[in-house]
């Protein structure tokens, strides 16, 4: 008599040939999907506007004679030094445009996965929570680095080209490192911040509003607290103020707030730690019990 064989579930005990950057496909997909959104390229291009203005200022600073009338009253604005870089990359309009890019392009990074139940698909592959988080973080990193690190370094390069000498670099040899350090700070902070909010909602539209709203709300809250308590320490509740403070330190400038800069770093690190805790709880892998 014929035997009917059962085809049950079998655990695979072989060795897995792992790829080195398991997060890379997630990052690539995230970036590609962001660019597929209608109008995203336009919004992303907008994040480079402050850098273009800075480049124009930089050019003008090297051609002061040609722009005498224009710069008479704004001469100090056109002194190109680390303060100029700090002003360009920590000012409100740059951060506003950057947060707009992040709200549009990355707010759905985790919330879409939660909504569509894709987390199980991810974790049914040889991926860990860290790989998943790193992949998603890399998407944010791409946009932040493109908007902050790349223009920052290019501005240094253009300054040298326009000046026709290396004097600027000799005067501030650490400036490229400052640009990279500041961009790294923005990457880590905004990466954590965006993933924290994205993991808190299943609705990407709601997450986008929260990415922007929480950032803006922190500034309003800090202003309110400051007016109630009358102490500058309340500025630590403001994300933009903390970024400005940390940026000033990284660009070798006097911190704008009357509180130790280390507190601002601690406040930003606190958000990152909260993000790690929330992500760890929200992202659950599929466990196969042997």
């Amino acid at each position: 008599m014929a035997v009917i064989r059962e085809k049950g579930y079998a655990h695979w005990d072989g060795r897995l040939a792992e790829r080195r950057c398991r997060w890379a496909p997630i990052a690539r997909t995230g970036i590609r999907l962001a660019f597929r959104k209608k109008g995203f390229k336009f919004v992303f291009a907008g994040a480079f506007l402050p850098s273009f203005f800075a480049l124009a200022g930089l050019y003008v600073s090297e051609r002061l004679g040609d722009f005498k009338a224009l710069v008479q009253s704004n001469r100090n604005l056109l002194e190109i030094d680390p303060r100029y870089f700090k002003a360009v990359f920590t000012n409100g309009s740059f951060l506003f445009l950057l947060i707009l890019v992040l709200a549009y392009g990355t707010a759905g990074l985790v919330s879409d996965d939660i909504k569509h139940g894709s987390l199980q698909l991810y974790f049914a592959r040889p991926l860990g929570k860290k790989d998943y988080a790193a992949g998603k973080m890399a998407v944010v990193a791409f946009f932040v680095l493109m908007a902050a690190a790349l223009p920052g370094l290019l501005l240094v390069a253009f300054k040298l080209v326009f000046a026709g000498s290396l004097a600027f670099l000799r005067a501030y040899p650490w400036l490229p490192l400052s640009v990279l350090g500041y961009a790294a700070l923005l990457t880590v902070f905004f990466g954590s911040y965006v993933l924290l909010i994205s993991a808190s909602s299943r609705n990407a539209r709601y997450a986008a509003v929260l990415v922007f709203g929480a950032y803006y709300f922190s500034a309003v809250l800090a202003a309110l607290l400051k007016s109630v308590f009358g102490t500058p320490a309340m500025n630590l509740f403001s994300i933009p103020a903390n970024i400005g403070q940390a940026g000033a330190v990284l660009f070798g400038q006097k911190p704008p707030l009357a509180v130790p800069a280390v507190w601002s770093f601690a406040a930003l690190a606190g958000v990152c730690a909260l993000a790690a805790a929330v992500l760890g709880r929200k992202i659950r892998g599929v466990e196969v019990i042997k």
Partner: protein
Amino acid sequence: MTAVISASHLSKYYGNVLGLNDVSIEIEAGITGLLGPNGAGKSTFMKLATGQMKPDIGTVAIRGRRTWNAPEIFRSVGFCSEPDAFYEDMTGLEFVAGLLRFYGFSRKEIGDRAARALDIVGLTGDRDRLVRGYSRGMRQRVKFAQAIAHDPEILILDEPLSGLDSLGKRKLIKLIKGYREEGRTVLVSSHVLPEIEALTSRVVLVHQGRILAEGDVPYIRELIEAHPHQVSVRSSDPRRLAARFVDDPAVLKMTFGGDGRTLVVETRKRDDLFERLAPAVLEAGIEVEEISSPDDNLEAVFKYLVGA
């Protein structure tokens, strides 16, 4: 008999993608099954028929009234959409009653009608639970309940049986058939032939946005019968198995697979072949690993119909 739903040269495009292409059809009272694989254009036709979409070319009308921007037709039309989508923060009763508010019934009547509709689909015991906590089958049933709650004359049901267990399917099929007995019109879509077969004998075959065939189920079956079926048997000794079928008149052709274990039999009488296969295998003491019918699906019929 006059057409309840009629479409004339109806076409719909999603950008460059063709949703529906030059469809002309008249649907009369009774149950009509819209049958086709996923992406065939069934849902597009239903959305056009219910005025949720605007035709790019042609017209679609219910009782002679064009459906785009014509909300008054929905007094007599009930629609059950395909996506598993709800106002999740409502209970089943609130969901059905809430949607009944739009018909101008009194509060009492809304309550009575909602309760009755939920009773019909067997959800009375769960009507006060949030929809988000319902199982897939319950969600499908509450979706059906909202479509019938206002007692419509015409029911348009997009894949109403998907997600239901066999018992749930049987109940819903019985319910839908009851509407036909009352002289109402039901247009129901599915990609599963037996489901449509259980509901009605009047079938419209849709494929790639076009109507391939229209008629009763025996006619569609005939099309399938006329098309040779392939049955693949993977066994320990395919050649010995083949020897047992060589003189079978139902067999048209036999080929052996490259793996040395597969026999592919081509037949016009698939059911007869299956009947003979089991005793043949047992008598010969052959160990069978797998029996499959690579073209035993609607797609194969469609391929046949389109000459692919």
